[in-house]
C-alpha cells in the first residue's frame, strides 16, 4: 500500500485525534483534530482526503500536500499546493465530481480551493470577513460549526459562525459546482445563540436559529428559515411556539412541503417536572404552518414495556441525536438516555455530573409521531460523566452529551438498498475504561446489533473511521515501535 510508505502520516497520527460531531446525517470533521477526512456521496463514503503541511517554500508561503484515497485506502493521487502562510487547513468535502478544500486565516478570511478528478485546480476564492473589525483575541475556536454539506452534482453549503468585535456573525455560504460563491449573512441580535443548517437539497436550505428566551432556564425560541439553494434568498420563516423549547433533529423536503422532526420540552411551572416529547411539524416552503403531530413521551411511554424494562422514562432523560427518513414515510431516530443520579448535584462545586446508567437505541416513528418500535442496546455496567459544559445548549447541537477525549461519534449509514440503515456509534465505557464501537442495523422493521470493545490503549492508540455499511476502519498506532496498522472492523450483524 502506498499509504504505508508515507512516514509523515505517522507523525500526523500521533499529533491529531479524531473528532466527529454527528449533529446531522453528515459526518463532520475538524481538520485540526483529524487525520483522514471522509468524502461522502449520497450517505456513502467514496474516499478519504488527507491534507498536511509539507514545507515552508518562501517567507510568506507554505506548501501543502493533498492526498486522495479510495474507500479501501488505495492512494489515487497526490498534489502539492502553495498557500499563504497566514492560512491554515480547516476542512474538506466532496461535491459532485470535485474536491473542496477550505483554508482559514485570522486576518484574511476563508480561502476555498477546488480540484477536479484529474487533480487540476478549478477554483481559488477568498471570502473576506471584514478583518478590520476582528478583535485581537480572535482565534479559531470561534469558528464553531465547520460542517460542509455536499449537495449531489450541485455544490456545497456551509454554515459559518465568526466572532467579531461587534459580536457573533452568522452566515450561510453556497459554493456551486460552477465555482460561484454566494454568501447570506444572518443579522443576529443579542439573544441569538446559534444557527445551524438542518437540511439542504437541490432546492432549499433549511437553517434553525436559536434565540434565548427571556425567562431563562435554558429555554430557547427556535425559528426555521427556508432559503433557496442556488441564490440563498430567504423564501420563508417559521417560528415554533415560544412557550416550548424545540430542538430540531432533522428535516425532509418533498413536494414543496417541509417536514421537521424535533424534540421539545417544557415546564408547566418554574419548579415543576420537565415534560418532553417528539414533534413532527409540516410547513410550506414559504414558512406557512400546515400541521403538527406531537407525542409527549412522558405520557405515552409510561406504560410501554420496552421503556419500562430499560427505564427510559423513570429518572431518565432521552437525548435524540439523529433522525433518518425512511422510504415509507416513517422516521428512524437514534437516542441515548441517561439515568439521573439520586445524589444532589451542586454544579457550582462539581463541574461533572455522573449518571448511573445509559442506554443507546433506535426508535421508529410514523408520520403521526407514534412510536412503532423501539430497540434499546443496553450498555451494561457503565456510567456517564457529563461535563456541565455539555448540558443541552443549542450551540452544542442537539446532542453532545458526553465527549470523552473528543472521539465519540454517531451517524447513520445507508446499506445497499434504501431499506437498510446502520446506526454506528463509538462510546467510552467508563467502567471498562474502553471505547466501544457498535452498530444497530435496521432492516425493514427489524433490528440487529453488535458491538466491539476496542483493546485497552496502553502503548497503542486506536482510531476508528466509518468505511462502508457494517464495516469500520481502525487505525492502530504503536507508539513504542512507531508503526501503524490499518484494518477493517467488520460487525457480525
Amino acid at each position, binding site marked *: 500500500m502506498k499509504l504505508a510508505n508515507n512516514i509523515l502520516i505517522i507523525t500526523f497520527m500521533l499529533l491529531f485525534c479524531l473528532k466527529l460531531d454527528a449533529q446531522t446525517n453528515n459526518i463532520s470533521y475538524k481538520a485540526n483534530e483529524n487525520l483522514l477526512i471522509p468524502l461522502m456521496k449520497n450517505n456513502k463514503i467514496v474516499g478519504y482526503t488527507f491534507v498536511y503541511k509539507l514545507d515552508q*517554500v518562501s517567507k510568506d508561503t507554505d506548501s501543502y500536500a493533498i492526498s486522495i484515497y*479510495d474507500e479501501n485506502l488505495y492512494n489515487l493521487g497526490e498534489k502539492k499546493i502553495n498557500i499563504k502562510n497566514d492560512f491554515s487547513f480547516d476542512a474538506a468535502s466532496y461535491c459532485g465530481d470535485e474536491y473542496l478544500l477550505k483554508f482559514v486565516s485570522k486576518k484574511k478570511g476563508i480561502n476555498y480551493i477546488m480540484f477536479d478528478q484529474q487533480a487540476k485546480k478549478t477554483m481559488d476564492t477568498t471570502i473576506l470577513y471584514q478583518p478590520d473589525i476582528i478583535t485581537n483575541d480572535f482565534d479559531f475556536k470561534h469558528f464553531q460549526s465547520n460542517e460542509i454539506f455536499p449537495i449531489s452534482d450541485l455544490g456545497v453549503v456551509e454554515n459559518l459562525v465568526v466572532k467579531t468585535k461587534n459580536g457573533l456573525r452568522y452566515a450561510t455560504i453556497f459554493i456551486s459546482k460552477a465555482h460561484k460563491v454566494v454568501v447570506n449573512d444572518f443579522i443576529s441580535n443579542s439573544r441569538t445563540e446559534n444557527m445551524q443548517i438542518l437540511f439542504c437539497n437541490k432546492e432549499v436550505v433549511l437553517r434553525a436559529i436559536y434565540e434565548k428566551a427571556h425567562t431563562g432556564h435554558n429555554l430557547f425560541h427556535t425559528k426555521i428559515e427556508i432559503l433557496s439553494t442556488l441564490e440563498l434568498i430567504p423564501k420563508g420563516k417559521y417560528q415554533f411556539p415560544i412557550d416550548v423549547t424545540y430542538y430540531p433533529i432533522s428535516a425532509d423536503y418533498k413536494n414543496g412541503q417541509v417536514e421537521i422532526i424535533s424534540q421539545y420540552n417544557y415546564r408547566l411551572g418554574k419548579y415543576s417536572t420537565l415534560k418532553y416529547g417528539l414533534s413532527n411539524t409540516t410547513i410550506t416552503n414559504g414558512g406557512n404552518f400546515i400541521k403538527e403531530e406531537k407525542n409527549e413521551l412522558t405520557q405515552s411511554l409510561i406504560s410501554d414495556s420496552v421503556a419500562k424494562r430499560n427505564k427510559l422514562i423513570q429518572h431518565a432523560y432521552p437525548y435524540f441525536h439523529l433522525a433518518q427518513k425512511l422510504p415509507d414515510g416513517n422516521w428512524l431516530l437514534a437516542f441515548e438516555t441517561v439515568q439521573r443520579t439520586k445524589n444532589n448535584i451542586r454544579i457550582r462545586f462539581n463541574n461533572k455530573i455522573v449518571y448511573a446508567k445509559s442506554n443507546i437505541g433506535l426508535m421508529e416513528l410514523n408520520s403521526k409521531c407514534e412510536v412503532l418500535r423501539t430497540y434499546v442496546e443496553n450498555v451494561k455496567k457503565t456510567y456517564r460523566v457529563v461535563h456541565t459544559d455539555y448540558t443541552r445548549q443549542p450551540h452544542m447541537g442537539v446532542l453532545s452529551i458526553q465527549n470523552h477525549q473528543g472521539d465519540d461519534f454517531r451517524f447513520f449509514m445507508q446499506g445497499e438498498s434504501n431499506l437498510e440503515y446502520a446506526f454506528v456509534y463509538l462510546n467510552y465505557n467508563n467502567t471498562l475504561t474502553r471505547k466501544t464501537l457498535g452498530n444497530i442495523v435496521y432492516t425493514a422493521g427489524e433490528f440487529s446489533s453488535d458491538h466491539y470493545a476496542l483493546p485497552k490503549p496502553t502503548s497503542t492508540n486506536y482510531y476508528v473511521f466509518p468505511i462502508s455499511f457494517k464495516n469500520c476502519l481502525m487505525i492502530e498506532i504503536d507508539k513504542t515501535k512507531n508503526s501503524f496498522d490499518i484494518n477493517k472492523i467488520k460487525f*457480525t450483524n
Partner: protein
Amino acid sequence: MVGKSKLSILILFLTMGSQCIFAQYAKEYKALSYSYKPASKNKALFMKKINAVYVPLAKEKQIVSAYKDYLFYLHQWHGELSKSKAFIADTTTTHYLQRVLDSVMHLNGIQTNYEVVLTRFSVANAFNMGDYRLYINIGLFKCLDNEAQLAYVICHELAHKMLNHAELKFIAKQKEKDDKKKKKEIRSIERAKYNKLDRAVNYARQNEYNYAQYSRVNEYQADSLALVLMMKSNYDLKEIKQLFENLDASDSINTPVPVVKFFNNETYQINTEWLNDSEYKIDFGNASLYEFDKDSLKTHPDMKNRYEKVDSLLLVWKYVEQDKKKYILSDSVFKHITFCADFEELEILKLNKRYASIIFHAMDLVEKYPHMTYLHKTIAENLKNIYTAFETHKLHKHIPLESEQMSDYYKELLRIIYHCSLNDYKLLCKAYCDNYKNELATFSDINNWYHEISK
C-alpha cells in the same frame, strides 16, 4: 570401496526419485522439514574462520574491520532466520541443490566452499549478500521449468559473489559517508530556511538513481560470468531465454480462479451483487507528490535486455546446442521441488495466518491437483478460522484490505467475506462443506464444525 559408495548414492537417488513421483499422486501433503539451528554468538571464533578464507579488497583498515563486522552480522541474521524456521532443511532438496552448484564449480575448477540455502520466502527471487551462502527462495521454483534454468540462477548468484559485488557496494557506501562534498551538501540542506524538503528529495533521488545504475551494471556482469561458468557444463543454455520470459511474466500472473463455483450449489447461491465493485469511483490523477523515474530506479535491467545481451554473448562464443541437456542430475527431484513450492506457499501463509490468501491459493491449486484432499481440508480449516475470527471481531488481522495490485479473483473472495453477516457466512461455509462432502469425510474436526454450523 569407491564403487560401493557410488552404488549407495545411486540407490539413494533412485529411492528419492520414486518417493517424489509418488508424492505428486498422494492425497495428503507432508510439509518439508525446516531449519531450527540458531547461530553461534562467539564472534572471536567466527573471525578466526573468516580470517582464514577472506582476502580483503579495501586497503583501509577501518573499512576491512567494518566489513568483517557486517559478515558477522550476516552470520547472526542467518542464525536468527534459521531458528525461526525460515529455511528448508529437507535432505533431498538441499543435497540436490548443493550438487547442482558443486557440479558447476567442479567443472570450472572452483575450490571455495559455497552453500546453497533454500528459503521459505514466496517471492520469486535469489540473492547473495556477500557471505558464502547463495539463497534461493522456494517461490522462484514457480518460474523455473527445468534443471538448466536452476543451474543458471545458482551460477548467477555465484557470479555475484565471485565478482565481490556486495563487498564493493559496501566499500563504496563507506567511502560515500566520508565524502566531503556530500557532507557539505547535506549540511546546506539542513541549514536551509526554505524548500528544505524539495532539496532533500532531489538529493535522495540522485543517490537512488546512481545506486540503481550501479546495480544494473552489476547484474549484466553477473549474467556474463554465469554464462562463462555454465559453458563448461552440459546444460542447455537456450533455456535461459525461457527463464527470463517466465520471470518477466511472474509479476502479472492472473490465473482465473472460479471462487463462486466453490460455494454455489442447488440450495445456496452467492449474491452476485456482492462481487460488484464500489458504486462510486473517484480519481485524483494518479500522480505522486515526488515523481521518480521508474526506469532509473530499477535495480535490475529489463529481462528482454538481459536476454539480448546473453544471446549476443552466445553468438560471439559460438555456442553449439548439440548434446546439451535440460536435466543432468535428476528430473524427478526437480519436479518434486516445484511440486512442493506450490504447497510450501500455503505453509508460509499458514504460518502468517493469512486465512483469505490461504483459501484463494488453495482454490487455485485445486484446478491443478484435483485429487488432493489436503487442499479441500485446508480451505475448510481456514473457512473455520475465519468464522472464529469473525465472531471475535478479529477478522481484520487475517483478511487484508482490497488493493489495486490484487488479482480480480482474489478481490471477489474478499468482497464476499466483507459483505457477509455472520449468518450469511455460516450458510456459505455450509454450502462449501456440502459441495465437497466426500473429500472432507475423513476429517473429524471439519465434520464436527459442519454439524455445529448446521444447527
